């Protein structure tokens, strides 16, 4: 139905950056034009608004937890309430913020533009994926309001299947539904990247963001069905008492962990790979330089996607899993750490002999490299079997996970939002406030999560409503950090919203960046992304900030 509204002849002159020029934002008005849109950019905006709602909800849960943990005694909430808080925090942040964040917002907005086409391969399926997400999200909120769930986001059986007396079934349905939205997004990206690249956009001319989205989509399509199956089995046992996981019914609780982590370990890469793609774009742009080791970064994404599927057992070293199985899983996990290290080195090397400037996206990107390095290295601690026996299920795990997910993915998301904000909305955010808040976020983050490494090695178990007095000092630090971190995020949301109306109008390419979205599409782009009649033909590699010159640099290498 919306195709009628999407094809007005562009009456504004394409060269004027403001005024009456038709963009995807003003192409049509009214709620119907948004809720029934099939424009990938409008769907990206819908996703942006909805994931921000979930981010605020999940963040509120986190702040309430940190308030409880300010003191060793469990004095603010009942134990059960606290357990619900960390469960809802995990469920909301993972399934409704982290997994969809970069793919569904930046990916949706950028993938078609970056490959040089008008929309994703299946625009209506794209809209469907948003509706599925909203239904799943509404179901989760319904569960949260009507009593919550207290199993932890990992839903370990038989606690979840037999013993918990909270709404496990409702949450299972919600997560099950939401899974399909990521499957559909992944499918759309895979087909779009395979079939709709503009003439000349060969695989090795693609921006690394596309490689990352492609690798992510593979995991979404291959991994998410296993999560769906696991949840169905859990539901069958919970509702119909069919023995699958509970030994009292003849089931095997460790089987649940195998199935759950078969999805949930790769899911960690669903959450971090797109962030790595964003970082590559930002680093290249703010170094004004060709990405160092382009092919290695591209293939490392695929390597992570593939190896990521064979390491799930590293979550189960002390579960009773055979020691020999653990041995193999530990070994494979070491291998999956390598491509991440390769990326970090390549990003750093890209700065070398470039022209580095520190606008907000770059601050986030550099912050990402540091925090992700720590997050990745501490992941190795957990994969080392003899050490995991001590730190498993302690705050060390919590800290590691948040260094990767917040220090990594959220920083990348923030960097990406700042980078492409003017492209999406045609207005600039206020630069110096943004730089300041990025520092606030960075400081707040480290205050929140670094103490948790120490707490973990000291032996404080995760998911503890009350804890021993000797852990209190570090917990106070962590809670104080969380309030700084929260302030940083709130400031960001405020000036972003402010800029929509009062921000400086953005030109087409404010960063002087390379890439179709900057060089060929106006800010914000029209409904079909490029100016009417413009045929996209790609003639150069990604990141063509520099060109092969005789005196180009000592590390120059004859590649292709």
């Amino acid at each position, binding site marked *: 139905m919306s195709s009628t509204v999407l094809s007005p002849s562009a009456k504004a002159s394409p060269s004027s950056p403001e005024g009456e020029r038709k963009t995807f934002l003003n192409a049509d008005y009214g709620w119907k034009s948004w809720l029934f849109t099939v424009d990938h950019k409008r769907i990206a905006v819908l996703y942006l608004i909805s994931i921000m709602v979930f981010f605020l909800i999940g963040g509120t849960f986190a702040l309430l937890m940190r308030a409880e943990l300010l003191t060793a005694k469990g004095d603010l909430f009942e134990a059960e309430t606290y357990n619900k808080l960390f469960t809802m925090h995990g469920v909301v942040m993972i399934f409704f913020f982290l997994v969809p964040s970069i793919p569904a917002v930046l990916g949706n907005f950028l993938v078609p533009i970056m490959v040089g086409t008008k929309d994703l391969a299946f625009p209506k399926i794209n809209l469907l994926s948003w509706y599925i997400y909203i239904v799943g999200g509404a179901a989760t909120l319904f569960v949260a309001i009507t009593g919550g769930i207290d199993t932890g986001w990992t839903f370990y059986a038989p606690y979840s299947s037999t013993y918990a007396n909270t709404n496990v079934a409702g949450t299972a349905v919600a997560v099950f539904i939401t899974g399909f939205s990521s499957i559909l997004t992944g499918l759309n990206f895979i087909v779009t990247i395979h079939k709709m690249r503009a003439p000349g956009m060969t695989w090795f001319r693609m921006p690394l963001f596309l490689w990352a989205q492609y690798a992510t989509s593979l995991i979404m399509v291959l991994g998410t069905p296993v999560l769906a199956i696991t949840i169905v089995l859990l539901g069958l046992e919970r509702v119909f008492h069919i023995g699958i996981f509970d030994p009292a019914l003849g089931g095997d*609780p460790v089987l649940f962990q195998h199935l759950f982590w078969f999805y949930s370990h790769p899911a960690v890469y669903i959450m971090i790979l797109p962030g790595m793609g964003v970082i590559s774009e930002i680093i290249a742009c703010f170094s004004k330089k060709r990405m160092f080791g382009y092919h290695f970064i591209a293939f490392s994404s695929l390597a992570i996607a593939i190896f990521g599927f064979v390491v799930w057992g590293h979550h189960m070293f002390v579960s009773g899993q055979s020691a020999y199985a653990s041995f193999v899983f530990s070994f494979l996990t070491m291998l999956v750490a390598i491509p991440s290290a*390769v990326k970090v080195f390549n990003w750093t090397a890209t700065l070398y*002999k*470039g022209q*580095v400037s520190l606008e907000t996206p770059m601050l986030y990107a550099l912050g990402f490299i540091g925090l992700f390095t*720590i997050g990745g290295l501490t992941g190795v601690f957990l994969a080392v079997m003899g050490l995991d026996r001590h730190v498993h299920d302690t705050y060390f795990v919590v800290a590691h996970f948040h260094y990767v997910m917040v220090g990594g993915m959220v920083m990348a998301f923030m960097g990406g939002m700042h980078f492409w904000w003017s492209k999406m909305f045609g207005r600039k955010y206020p630069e110096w406030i943004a730089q300041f808040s990025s520092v606030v976020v960075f400081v707040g983050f480290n205050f929140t999560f670094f103490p948790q490494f120490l707490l973990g090695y000291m*032996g404080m178990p995760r*998911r503890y409503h009350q804890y021993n007095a000797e852990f209190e000092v570090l917990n106070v630090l962590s809670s104080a950090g969380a309030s700084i971190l929260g302030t940083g995020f709130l400031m960001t949301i405020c000036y972003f919203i402010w800029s929509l109306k009062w921000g400086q109008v953005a030109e087409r390419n404010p960063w002087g960046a390379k890439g179709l979205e900057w060089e060929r599409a106006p800010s914000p782009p029209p409904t079909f992304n490029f100016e009417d009649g413009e045929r996209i033909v790609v003639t150069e590699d990604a990141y063509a900030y520099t060109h092969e010159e005789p005196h180009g640099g000592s590390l120059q290498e004859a*590649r292709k």
Partner: protein
Amino acid sequence: MWKDLPLHPEQASTLAQPVDLLYLFLVAVSAFFALLISVLIVVFTAKYRKDRPNATSAHIEGSTLLEIVWTGIPLGLTMIMFGWGAVLFFQQARPPANALEFTVTGKQWMWKAQHPTGQREINDLHIPIGVPCRLTMTSEDVIHSYFIPAFRTKQDVVPGRYSQMWFEANKLGTYDLFCAEYCGTKHSQMIGKVTVLSQKDYEVWLAGGGSSETPAQAGERLFSALRCITCHNNTAGARGPDLAGKFGTEALLTSGAKVMIDAEYVRESILNPAAKTVNGFQVGLMPTYQGQVKEDDILALIAYLKTFGAAKAAASPATGNAAK
């Protein structure tokens, strides 16, 4: 000040120091790389500022040599970590043969322990110093995890199966015991203390712990009370296999497969006898004892079967420490 913010728990078991050593190695490697990356970022950012005079970007595609170096070095380092960690893990996983045998049952939200000599305690565990202790653990409901930070070890306690852990305390004192696997509302209250006593104090403690029967004695009593003995005996034509001296040996099943008669097998045969019937006996003849025996009873029966018919080998519970 430094004392107020300790960076590791006390080292109170033989494997605590090796774990800390491995940890320090990883911390050192991580700190090196985190610093290296940070310094490079700061130096490059400062040196190649965009607003430097005559700023241009060099055209650099990459360097295969560098890629090999920064793939190879992390690979080598992680392989060292992997090997070191695996060796340590197998030490943590394999109890010495002469270990004292404790049993632990977890339930929402308490830890029940029983000593080799039969004394029971809840949420506490008293052990002698310098003696390897082996815990055979199971859960009556959900998954728990027995975690003693000062010993640097933990093991999940899973319903429907036995898991094991062991440690040898080498420092007198009282240490925290935590449940590390989230198990429901009072998860954070499923905690206790492990007290390491001298040999002498341990014996005094045992003497004051109430004179109860040993697990093996309890098992022997149950073996009659539950009428196991009416079928499992050595008379000709007995309806079940004789169990004397069988624990720890292999049995041939009706399926033709062989099975090790261990704790898991005994447990399964009590609860689900038809699953693996010994060759020569009728499948399905023995009724299930599901619902009639508690986890503690099964543990007692296992303790009894370990000693049954092997009296010569079990002169006394091992107290020496010939561990490695």
